[in-house]
């Protein structure tokens, strides 16, 4: 009997293997970004930071990073505002058509991005708008709102609506209740939503590629650099920085989400 490993063992081994494969390509970029070789090949050639040094003072890249920052912050803020409206309606109101309305808001999650991108492109150009960072923000909002809604729905579910009622009964105005009761209770979820949507916007490529005109975001800039084989190590360095940034933002978002959950557990 000892010869056969237990099913539990087999499953654990499989899961470890699976997670390793998930991480392997992601960890590869940082490894080769400090490898002293112009092409990413094995065996590793030695440690260097020159690919990172090559990035500093690169005006085009810094411009793209600045663009990404503007787009990310705008998309995160606006999608969280829209997400609060949707999440509130979903958790606090029951009405006919709610399913259809929320389905429509969540639809960009499952649609191929290229469909969203080309339809927006045709309409925006048809309206005579120039492609700019604003058009990228408009596109990113569509795909960020569903994530905001998901995060914020659990936030709204996490606190008792009677607290808002109590505030109103005690004479607070609707705005006062929002500012002094609802938003503080929701704060961890709001921060989590901001961080998650910023990360999505930062990493998003297809919509930015179609809608960005002459001002590239970082992924669009990276795409342009891929044409030059000699630039690959620099791209790997930039990609590693982006991965690290995403990781930090998401870990922070997760910690805030956990805090929101703990708040919920403390509820009497």
């Amino acid at each position, binding site marked *: 009997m000892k010869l056969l490993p237990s*099913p*539990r063992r087999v*499953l654990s081994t*499989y*899961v470890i293997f699976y*997670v390793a*494969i*998930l*991480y392997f*390509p*992601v960890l*590869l*970029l940082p490894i*080769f970004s400090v490898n002293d070789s112009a092409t*990413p*090949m*094995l065996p590793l050639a030695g440690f260097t930071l020159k690919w990172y040094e090559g990035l500093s003072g690169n005006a085009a890249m810094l411009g793209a990073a600045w663009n990404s920052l503007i787009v990310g912050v705008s998309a995160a803020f606006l999608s969280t*505002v*829209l997400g609060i409206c*949707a999440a*509130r*309606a979903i958790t606090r109101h*029951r*009405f006919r058509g*709610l399913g259809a*309305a929320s389905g*429509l*808001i969540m639809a*960009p*999650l499952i*649609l*191929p*991005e*290229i*469909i*969203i991108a*080309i*339809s*927006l492109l*045709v*309409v925006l150009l048809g309206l005579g708008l120039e492609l700019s960072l604003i058009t990228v923000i408009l596109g990113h*909002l*569509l795909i960020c709102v569903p994530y905001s*809604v998901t995060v914020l729905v659990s936030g709204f579910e996490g606190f008792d609506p009677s607290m808002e009622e109590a505030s*109103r*009964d005690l*004479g607070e*105005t*609707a705005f006062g209740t929002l500012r002094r009761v609802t938003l503080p209770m929701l704060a961890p979820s709001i921060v989590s939503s901001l961080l998650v949507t910023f990360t999505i916007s930062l*990493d*998003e490529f*297809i919509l930015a590629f179609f809608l960005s005109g002459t001002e590239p975001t970082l992924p669009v800039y*990276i795409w342009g650099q*891929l044409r030059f084989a000699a630039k690959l190590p620099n*791209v790997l360095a930039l990609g590693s920085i*982006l*991965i690290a940034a*995403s*990781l930090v933002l*998401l870990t922070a978002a997760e910690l805030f989400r956990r805090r929101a959950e703990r708040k919920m557990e403390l509820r009497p």
Partner: protein
Amino acid sequence: MGTAGKPGHGEEAHLQPSAPTLPVERSARRTGGPRFLQTETGKGWLTISPPLIYAVLLLIGPIIVIITHSFWTQDYLTIDRTFTLDNYKAALTEPIYRDLLMRSLFVSVTVAFVTVILAYPVAWFVSFHGGRYKGLWLFIITVPFWSGYLLRILSWKVILGYKGVLNSGLLYLGVIAEPLNWLIYNVNAVIITLAHSWAAFAILPLFVSLEKLDRSLLEAAADLGDGPVRRFLRVTLPLTMPGIIAALLIVMIPTVGDYVTPRLVGGKDGVMIANAIQAQFGKASNWPLGAALAVTTMVIVSLVAGAIVLMLLGLKRLFK
């Protein structure tokens, strides 16, 4: 704000001298307005209206515009707005588009099934053996997914390339004498890359459906003498079918329109329909044809998705 509110206060106080009823009076006034907005339905619609109007204007509107465009014709720089089905005829009959469409469908269906089959045991493990660390496990599994779509695909290009990590590694170890040329620039490379990219998307719905599974049903099946295989086929699989279907669709529909993966690792033999759609909106500059290709892709992938759902539901009934 403060001064504007004051007269209102005074008025109310005047009308309702007894202080304790004041907040009630104010709350009634606050929700004033058209009668519809005072009903639960009205308040609900009002609350959801900002994101809903946004989705209608920037998603439904543009999609209608695209559908309209697909019935027009590109006439050099202008668009001829007489109704025609020529674009659809081209999309469905021209060998190049037909081949690209079939390949895209093949890739997306394969990726969906591969992803779900590989992810199911992991979702099972997290749900049944995750214990206190379920949240942490899910976080660990979803992190690589957040590392940037473009970068993940680039990474696979670095791994699978002719002079890439895998080839150079195997050469160095002496396993192969010369680089393998079938690793990259074909459909398999596209499938591997996409299956990796969408893994997290498949795990989440599977995990949710496994969490909802009533464990006492499994115990009951075991008590009644069902072995692990029968338990899985007759209890777990049918009851988690909604999660399996959700996971399949959530992977299949977006991947059919993937643009970057075929461009970076697909090569000549891995081109997919999104590349043709992009070409029509870029270099070829034939928006109506591009629109028709996009609409055709969506309609066909929806039909295939519907067929798969029906098939799986049939399968579920068979096991019961």
